[in-house]
Structures are given as structure tokens and as C-alpha cells.
């Protein structure tokens, strides 16, 4: 088997004394969409922050194509091709849409390629084209999410870490954005690590998926298998009858780790 694009081994990260992720190992093959599912507080965002270098892990290692990323500052992680599209969009509210996109390409110098990517982003997200001069903070939530993804694409990443793009969006808009994510993957070959609570929609476009709980990976399987798994159906696809009982049973199944 070839080396995966992204390899994460036994990663541990703390907030002060609080251990937020506890020995996470996973890998992402080039060209794939790998989804990380999990409930609130499972440690998904912490995992992404550790991967992108804004948090330093206490233990463990991260490597991209065999080159170690662990301990590098964020700008060097970005320069090596890992871009983080954060939870809650985190656009630059007073900058124009165009300047937000330009910030995505901050570390790049290849003007022609940047201009091409700019066009590519606007082709995928036409609403942004009409609003290039508008302050990004005045965009709607869905438009801001598109801008955040577009800004990430402007880095021409080898892998995009995408944190809960469905957050706070209407089901229709979620469908629209996930269609675009899927197209970016198939048409542009963008490799994605997709963190979601919305398991149904994430599994509909992912190749592989991991489930996190209390800072650990408790399940790993192809998206296909996950979709059919009774537990996933019960706990993430909204088929459980009552959440409290569901919660209890999920905990009883911790033998996965």
C-alpha cells in the first residue's frame, strides 16, 4: 500500500490540564473525502486545530506524504499544503470578498495560477462573483460558508480540513454546498477531511469515515459500510427512538476503541 497523503498517529492535545484528544490515529488517502463524525465535544475541532498547527500536540505525530508536520507553526503547515476551513466560517468581516479570497493565497507567489484559482472558485460559487466588492461580514451565513471554502481553495491545498460546513444552514443550502464539495473532489481532485455532526450528508459524499467520541476514534470504516451500520443509523442518522437510551447504548459499545 502506498503511503497515505495524511497520516496521524496517536495524537494527544490538551487545553491546559484538559486532555481533549486522546491518542487519535487516522489516515487520509490522496483524492479521497474522509469524514470524521462525532457528537458535540468529541474533539473534532481540536483534532483539526492540532493538524493545522494552531495547537501543539503533547504526543503523537502528523505527516503529510511522509514529511512530518508535527511542531511546525501554522504558516509552514499551510505552505506544505494543509488548509483549515474553520468551524463557524471565520471570514474577515470588514475585508471585501475579493480580499478574503486573496488572503487564502497569502503564501503563494504564482500570480497566474492564483488568478486561475480565483476564476475556478468563482465558477463554483457564482454568488461570490456578484459580491466581490462587498464586505464579507455582510454576506449571509451560507454565502460566508461558500467564501470560507473558496478562501481555502485559494491556497491550492493538497488537503483541505473542513470543519462542519453544514453548521446553521438550511437543509437545502447544506445539500447545495455538499454537492459543490463533492464536485470539487471529483473534478478538481481536492482531498478533504470533512468533520461533521450531520452524518447523513457527510456519509453521502465521503469515501471513508471515522467516528470520534470523548477524544478518541471509536470506529473506522468505509462510508458505504457506515451508512449501513445499525449503530450509525441509530445514533447519527436520526432513527433512534429516544436520545437518552441511545446515548446509553452508544456508551456501552465503547469496546470499539
Amino acid at each position, binding site marked *: 500500500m502506498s503511503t497515505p497523503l495524511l497520516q496521524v498517529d496517536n495524537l494527544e492535545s490538551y487545553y491546559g490540564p484538559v486532555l481533549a484528544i486522546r491518542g487519535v490515529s487516522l489516515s487520509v488517502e490522496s483524492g479521497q473525502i474522509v469524514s470524521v463524525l462525532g457528537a458535540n465535544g468529541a474533539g473534532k475541532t481540536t483534532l483539526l486545530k492540532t493538524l*493545522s498547527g*494552531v495547537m501543539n500536540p503533547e504526543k503523537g505525530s502528523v505527516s503529510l506524504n511522509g514529511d512530518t508536520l508535527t511542531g511546525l*507553526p*501554522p*504558516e509552514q*503547515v*499551510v*505552505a506544505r499544503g494543509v*488548509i*483549515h*476551513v*474553520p468551524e463557524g466560517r*471565520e*471570514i*474577515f*468581516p*470588514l*475585508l471585501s470578498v475579493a*480580499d478574503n479570497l*486573496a*488572503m*487564502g493565497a*497569502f*503564501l503563494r507567489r504564482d500570480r497566474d495560477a492564483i488568478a486561475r484559482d480565483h476564476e475556478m472558485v468563482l465558477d463554483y460559487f457564482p454568488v461570490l462573483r456578484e459580491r466581490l466588492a462587498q464586505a464579507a*461580514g455582510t454576506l449571509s451565513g451560507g454565502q460566508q460558508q461558500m467564501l470560507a471554502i473558496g*478562501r481555502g481553495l485559494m*491556497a491550492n491545498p493538497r488537503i483541505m480540513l473542513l470543519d462542519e460546513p453544514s453548521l446553521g444552514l438550511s437543509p437545502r443550502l447544506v445539500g447545495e454546498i455538499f454537492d459543490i464539495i463533492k464536485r470539487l473532489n471529483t473534478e478538481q481532485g481536492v482531498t478533504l477531511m470533512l468533520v461533521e455532526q450531520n452524518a447523513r450528508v457527510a456519509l453521502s459524499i465521503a469515501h471513508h469515515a471515522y467516528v470520534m467520541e470523548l477524544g478518541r476514534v471509536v470506529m473506522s470504516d468505509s462510508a458505504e459500510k457506515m451508512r449501513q451500520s445499525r449503530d450509525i443509523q441509530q445514533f447519527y442518522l436520526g432513527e433512534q427512538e429516544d436520545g437518552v437510551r441511545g446515548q446509553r447504548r452508544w456508551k456501552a459499545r465503547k469496546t470499539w476503541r
Partner: protein
Amino acid sequence: MDFAQLLISGLANGCVYGLIALGFVLIYKATEAINFAQGDMMMLGAFITLALTNDNHMGLPFIPSVLIAIAVMAVFGYLLDALMLRHVFGQPQIAVVILTIAIGYIIRFGAGLIWGHEPQSLHSPLAGQDITIAGIALGLDEIAVIIVTILLTGFLYGFFAHTRTGIAIQAASQNQLAAYYMGVPVRRVYSLVWGLSGVVAAIAGVLFASKGSIDPNTGLLGIKAFAAAVIGGFGSLPGALLGGLIVGVIEPFASRYGPSGYAQIAPYLLLVLVLVFRPHGLLPQVQQKKV
């Protein structure tokens, strides 16, 4: 005609206040620190220029001296952040405030050691010359101060609106975390902003010294500039300039037409009024900063 002279001289003073206020706001917007040494950095810039160009010192030509002083102050500001402020980054605000106050003391002390405490005048080609416009005699130095301030403002506007670094500074100030995610070396950007405020301080210092004498305590007028920044709406660059101009203009008019002694207190009276009636200043920040 008296009115016009008062106005021009007030505007010229106001430009200097405005530039120091700009230094405060530049650093505050980008890093959320308040640099109480900004006035002292202005004084230092003025003394460095004086030491380079005055005949009793090195006697270099004026313009190169100014450029060297600007470069020195840029490096000074950058290193101040890189070597000192960065270490209190993330500490409570008060630590930063105390540190910059202490730095201000050290700069005043150092300037006193090197250049003495007697007031000195910068040998500027502008000093003491008048031009007459429409029958009104105006100080060339004052006109030059206003023109240079306008040019510098235009330059800063262009820098922030159109250069990659300028936009990155704005981005880091609006959303620090997102700037990290985009690969902006945020710490280095902060040091750059300190360097930039060193440049502004040096220019303000040269302008101030072109209009009158300086001594190591000159920088204490930074407090007035701080008031100007608050009047303008701390966190707004145009507001800082506007606040400076208002304070500058109020002073000569208050001393000319008001009761005696009123001029010193006028800017602070205005500060109180603004804080009571417009607590966010005249030109408040458009949107609260995301931390």
C-alpha cells in the same frame, strides 16, 4: 486674518497629535495593546534627526537625516515588539500597559543622558520662514506639516487597502485565528505594525521639532494625543487623525478667545464631553473586533 493664522497653526499642531494618535490606534487595532511610549518614540525620532543634521552634532543634510531617523525608528519599533512585547503577549492588558509606560520612562531617561535636558531646536530648512497667501502670512513649517500629514495619510491608506502586507495586517486585526489558518505569520505581522508606528512616530517627531524646540519630556504630549485618539474613536484610523485635528484646533482658539488657562484643559474637557455623549468616539470602529 488672525482667524486663518490660528486655524493653520491649530491644524499643524493637530496633525502632530493626529499622527501620534495614529500610532496608538495602529498598534491597538492590530494587537490590542496600547503603547503609552508612542509620544516618547516621537521624541526619540525627533532627537535622532536632530543629532544627525544639526551643525553642532553630525551636520548631515536634512532629508537623509530624516530618512535615517525613520529607518532607525522602524527597526526600533519592530524590535521593541519582537524582543519585549511578544513576551507579555497573552498576559493581562495591564502588563502590556505597564511595560509600555516603563519603556517610555527608559526612552526619556536615555534621551536625557545623551542629549541633555535643555530644549533644542532642529535645524530644519523650513523653520522660521513665512509665505504670504492672499495677504495672510503663514509659517512655511506649518504648511509643510499639513502637507506631509496628508501625504502620509494617503500612503498609509494605499498600504492598507492595496498591498498584500497591508491587507494581511487588517485581516489579522479582524480575525487573528483565521489569519493563522491562512498562513499569516501573525506575530511577525504584529512586529511590522510596531515598526510602522515607529515610522509614523519619527515623522511626527520631525514635524513637531520643525515648529519648535524639543526636550526629553516632549513625548509627554502623547497623553494629549491619546485623548485625541479616544475622541476620534479608539480603533479608527481616520478617527485618530480627526481627533488630533480637533484637539489641535481647539487649543489656540481656547487660548485666544477663552479665559486664561483654559487652553490646557480644553482638550480634556472635550474628551469628557465626547465620552459622556458618544462613548465610542466620533468615528467608532465599524464592527466589534473578533477575538
